[in-house]
């Protein structure tokens, strides 16, 4: 980690840790408040880095971790406060936030210059809906795991909610692909080229579609359904954090 943004990112992660601690004891709104406080401090860290390096957190693994730490915290914090139905997802969500916070501590913070092709308004929309997709799929996975731990009607409610959040994830993922395609057309003169990240992202979309169809077309046990929902998030996690981990920039081949 580097610079003063590190302090604020650590404070933010501390709030996420508090949220995780509370999550196992209560489903009170305090968890949501802790997570939102965490997101505010991570936002401060992003702002400081932005000011220092001159561009938003779009490029390196470190920046993607930082921006995801903020966006996932914000999305879940708001959902937790507004919808009691998602509160049971809290242990999983806070656990993932904490994992990202720890990963951030050991990630390489060295900035790289922003390519001219990244200075495009469609990139903003692409990133925004991408974060919403990841947030929704994380909540869906959290609810699926919470359903596995529940019994009776509560289990059914959590299962149903998990499928609804997965559907929301599909909407945002589709929007991410469309916005990304428009950006790619402007930036590199083609809307689709099967670069590693495009392929992984399309694979995630396809897997989500297959899972949603499987629910309708084959006798899918509730347990297998939960596993598949969690698998969607795992695949999305690998797409977001795995591809940048093995290359320097998300769309490295196209920079």
């Amino acid at each position, binding site marked *: 980690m580097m610079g003063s943004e590190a302090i604020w990112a650590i404070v933010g992660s501390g709030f996420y840790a508090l949220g995780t601690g509370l999550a196992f004891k209560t489903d009170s709104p305090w968890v949501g408040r802790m997570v939102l406080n965490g997101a505010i401090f991570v936002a401060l860290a992003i702002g400081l880095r932005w000011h220092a390096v001159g561009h938003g957190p779009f490029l390196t693994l470190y920046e993607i971790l930082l921006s995801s730490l903020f966006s996932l915290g914000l999305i879940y914090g708001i959902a937790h406060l507004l919808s009691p139905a998602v509160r049971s997802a809290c242990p999983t969500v806070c656990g993932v936030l904490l994992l990202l916070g720890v990963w951030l501590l050991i990630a390489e913070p060295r900035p790289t*210059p922003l*390519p*001219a*092709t990244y*200075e*495009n308004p469609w990139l903003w929309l692409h990133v925004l809906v991408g974060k919403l997709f990841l947030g929704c799929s994380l909540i869906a996975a959290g609810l699926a795991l919470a359903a596995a731990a529940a019994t009776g009607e509560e289990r059914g*409610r959590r299962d*149903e909610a998990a499928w*609804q959040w997965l*559907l*929301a994830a*599909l*909407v945002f993922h*589709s*929007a991410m692909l*469309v916005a990304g*395609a*428009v950006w790619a*057309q*402007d*930036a*590199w*003169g*083609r*809307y689709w080229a*099967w670069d*590693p990240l495009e*392929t992984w992202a*399309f*694979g995630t979309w*396809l*897997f989500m*579609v*297959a899972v949603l*169809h*499987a629910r*309708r*077309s*084959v006798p899918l046990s509730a347990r297998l359904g939960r596993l598949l929902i969690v698998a969607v998030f795992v695949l999305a996690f690998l797409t977001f954090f795995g591809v940048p981990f093995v290359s320097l920039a998300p769309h490295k081949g196209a920079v």
Partner: protein
Amino acid sequence: MSESTLGRLPAIVVSSRLTLAGSLLLGAGLVWQQIRPEAGAWAVTLSLLVLGTNLLAALLWDKRLRGHPALFLFHVGLLLIGVLAGWGQLAEFKGRLVLAEGQQFHPSLVETVEHGPMHPSLPQEGRFRQGAVAVDYRAGMHRGRTHSQLRFADGRDVHVGDDIPLLVDGYRFYTTSNKGFAAYLEWTSSDGTVELGVVHLPSYPIREMTQFNRWRTPAGEDLEFSLDLPVIERGQDWRLSRDVARETPLLIRAAGKTWQLAPGERLAMGGGSLCFMDVGLWLGYRVHHDPALPWLFSAALITLATLAWFLVSTWTRERARQASSQQVLRRSWAKAVGL
């Protein structure tokens, strides 16, 4: 194929199990394509055909799908995207072009990279001329924005850059990172015939150490040209434009001799004379034409909107179902306690 299998064929083609199988096949094809591109492409094409047929059949005959207007329209949108993407591939054109500052565009300058069988020929009119080119560099030789001015015959100026293409008759001209210096020359033959030409030097700054090129005069003499360019300070921001080479002399080598010409100077040689007029920049463009693009974008937006509509209607229905089951529960409770 047995009669019972034939009889069940429409149901198989329509079933969402086939969608599932097609999706898994496509996923496997994509993985395969990453490992063995050509073999994987077949698997991808086959799975897309299966999915397309399944989708069309479902739209025509799946009653459950037709019962959900939002879901139905979403699937129509998906099919439309597939058809438009296919049409785009058939009518697509990809090419490249290099223009020097002041040079008039002409379709014959475009080198075809690939084109679909349905692509018409390039428009025959060249209506613009390359204006000033500048490229921003940040410290450490990191390329920033490209600024390219294009001047149309009606006097209109259009500025294009890395992510702002020029649009002419559905053709998109994108600037590329390929650019360099060009020496503008005037050749005057012994009989007084004057010819103007441009010698492009290699891409700059990526090949700054090899800034030379060769040209044969109309009289048949081989000349080698090079520019003795100033050294760029890598630790600071700078801008690449023709001004970088404004005072740079042109070095000409032929038959073991070297001449140095400043802009405007003339060199007499066998069969005529050569005047070094000026230095400018040349810029490479990527040319792309896909007539399906605006339709594809519209179809994608409609598809997205209908998916969002389906999500909202599902949420609303689920909320209503939960409210109704709670009401039933309250009524049964009230009945049980005798209220």
